[in-house]
């Protein structure tokens, strides 16, 4: 299996993500420059965190027009696994691969801290190694992480089980006090209808080694690897 980490001008979590896949997961991974249009040969594509194009206009608004994004859309449409972390999540929303958008944080502050995140669904290729209801300690680092969508979309996300992660307190309660940025329904991560595209604001790649204070994010990458090896087995 082979992973691709897309590098936009202003991506800054690309190396962390690459490190986790190559060193922690022990899987082959390449950087993909945002001007590359060919992404053949990859089994999973990751859009990393950062500040692509300086967040000009809106977060992710310019990156979505990068040449690589047309290929990412095609890859996702054909069932390929796509993960967007933080700015990657914002880009996936702007590109229309995920519904809704990320607004400025409720209190206008850039927040960089460990938060508790509850695993809502384990029926995605990104979360199979977690336990439903498991509370993770994973850092967030964003100024625009306030998830918003219209009420019909929110109803659809809820009824289809597409809310994958929610901000919660240490006991796993998704309270308003445990909502760091004002996200609708404490949403920290969602998936598309087909469940092969996931976006989340927390940074699992910054919580994949106990040396960094938490390795709760490692299971997300492990889930990906496990799901991919199953998929590749089926294909063979």
């Amino acid at each position, binding site marked *: 299996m082979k992973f691709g980490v897309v590098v936009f001008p202003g991506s800054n979590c690309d190396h962390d993500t690459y490190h986790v896949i190559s060193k922690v997961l022990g899987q082959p991974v390449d950087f993909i420059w945002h001007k590359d249009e060919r992404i053949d040969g990859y089994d999973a594509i990751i859009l990393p965190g950062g500040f692509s194009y300086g967040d000009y*206009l*809106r977060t992710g*608004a310019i990156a979505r*027009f990068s040449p690589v994004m047309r290929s990412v859309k095609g890859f996702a449409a054909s069932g390929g696994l796509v993960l967007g972390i933080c700015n990657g999540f914002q880009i996936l*929303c*702007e590109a229309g691969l995920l*519904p*809704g*958008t990320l*607004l*400025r*944080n*409720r*209190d*206008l502050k850039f927040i960089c801290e460990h938060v508790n995140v509850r695993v809502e669904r384990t029926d995605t290729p990104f979360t199979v190694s977690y336990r439903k209801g498991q509370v993770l300690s994973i850092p967030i680092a964003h100024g625009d992480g*306030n998830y*918003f*969508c*219209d009420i019909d979309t929110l109803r659809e996300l809820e009824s289809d089980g597409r809310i994958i992660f929610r901000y919660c307190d240490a006991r796993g309660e998704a309270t308003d006090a445990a909502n760091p940025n*004002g996200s609708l329904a404490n949403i920290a991560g969602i998936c598309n209808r087909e469940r092969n595209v996931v976006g989340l604001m927390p940074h699992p790649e910054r919580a994949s080694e106990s040396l960094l204070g938490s390795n709760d994010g490692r299971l997300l990458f492990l889930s990906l690897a496990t799901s991919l090896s199953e998929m590749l087995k089926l294909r063979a």
Partner: protein
Amino acid sequence: MQAKVYVTLKNGVLDPQGKAIHHAAETIGYRGLTDVRQGKFFEIKLDETLDAETARIEIEKFAHDVLSNPVIEDYRVEIVG
């Protein structure tokens, strides 16, 4: 010829920046402001050979596809000059 594009938040979309500006205005002592909503304004210079109708179609599309996010924002286009 010039285009002016106003991008504003849809009703019901929380605007913490507008709220902070409103709060600051009240703190400084400005009176009678009941609400502040922050938006974006774009001035776009246009090729003089373009006719107004084509320019409007082009800029409407640009405003819809790029300058605004239809999930949270509305836009208004003016062609002037």
